[in-house]
């Protein structure tokens, strides 16, 4: 995480639709991969600007977004509550602007059997 000076306007990029099919931090999966190609000049970082989620029979639960997985997980945002069967949309104004230098990962704290959550983020990539 870093502090934004406002001079680092970046490029808005949508991430892929990712399915969160397992609960708990050990099962955190990458929902946005940061540019890390060795021949790319410069260090990139991303700020999440929008989050879209679809709760597919997973029960009322929360989704945690951060970086890493397991004991290396670092939480970026407060837990986001998502209601069973509903679509959630957190636009730019509803998200605290935190900067990440690692792949963005996410996991649900609990899931009903057979249920899962689809998640997609839109980020601003800077650097």
């Amino acid at each position, binding site marked *: 995480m*870093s*502090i934004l*000076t406002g001079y680092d306007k970046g490029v808005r990029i949508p991430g892929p639709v990712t399915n969160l099919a397992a609960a708990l931090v050990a099962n955190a999966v990458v929902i946005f991969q940061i540019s890390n190609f060795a021949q790319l*000049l410069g*260090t990139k970082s991303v700020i999440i600007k929008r989050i879209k989620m679809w709760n597919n029979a997973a029960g009322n639960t929360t989704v945690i977004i951060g970086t890493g997985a397991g004991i290396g997980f670092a939480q970026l945002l407060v837990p986001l509550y998502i209601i069973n069967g509903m679509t959630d949309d957190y636009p730019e104004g509803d998200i605290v602007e935190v900067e990440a*230098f690692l792949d963005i990962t996410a996991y649900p704290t609990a899931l009903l059997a057979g249920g899962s959550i689809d998640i997609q983020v839109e980020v601003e990539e*800077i650097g």
Partner: protein
Amino acid sequence: MPDLYAFKAQIGMFDPVALQDHNVCIHYLQERHYRQVDFFESLPPFQCINLGALAAQTRGARTPVVNLEMADDEFALFRWYCLDNAQIYLFLPGGVAKFELRNIQIPYDYKTLQRDPNLVSTEFCVWEINRPSVEALNGMDYALAAVRIIAMGYRFHTLLLPKETVEAIKGGREPCVHVWASGRGQG
């Protein structure tokens, strides 16, 4: 004769200090290099260095910015800013402070780009491989994950000037653009 000089304020990307076949005098410490431009090109804004993570209230080590060094017979004109919220102290060459007053060395600050949108005040030249270096200071109570510097400008390849032309420049009979490629100690 185009109106070219160092520290020029204007809207948008800044002008080069010289064009093809123009005379330049590159001041490096106490040296003066009288040269003629025989090639130049622009350098789009690029991330020249990432000084890495910096703990809260910490001044990092002096670090050479090797990506700003130039080849033999070449100098570059740079303006620059920092993406992250650090103060940056510039040294040119590595042992000589740049932006020096009697009592303080002025750092680039995260407000510089707002107060000086043309980045005129950040302008400096690098003559050949003369070790531009920076130190980052994180004066805040939070750690920085990166300290990234963006530079842009122009690259000039130059040739030696004939002695007669140099004398004519010194005598004021030939035009010449003076550029400074180092800091300078006091006195």
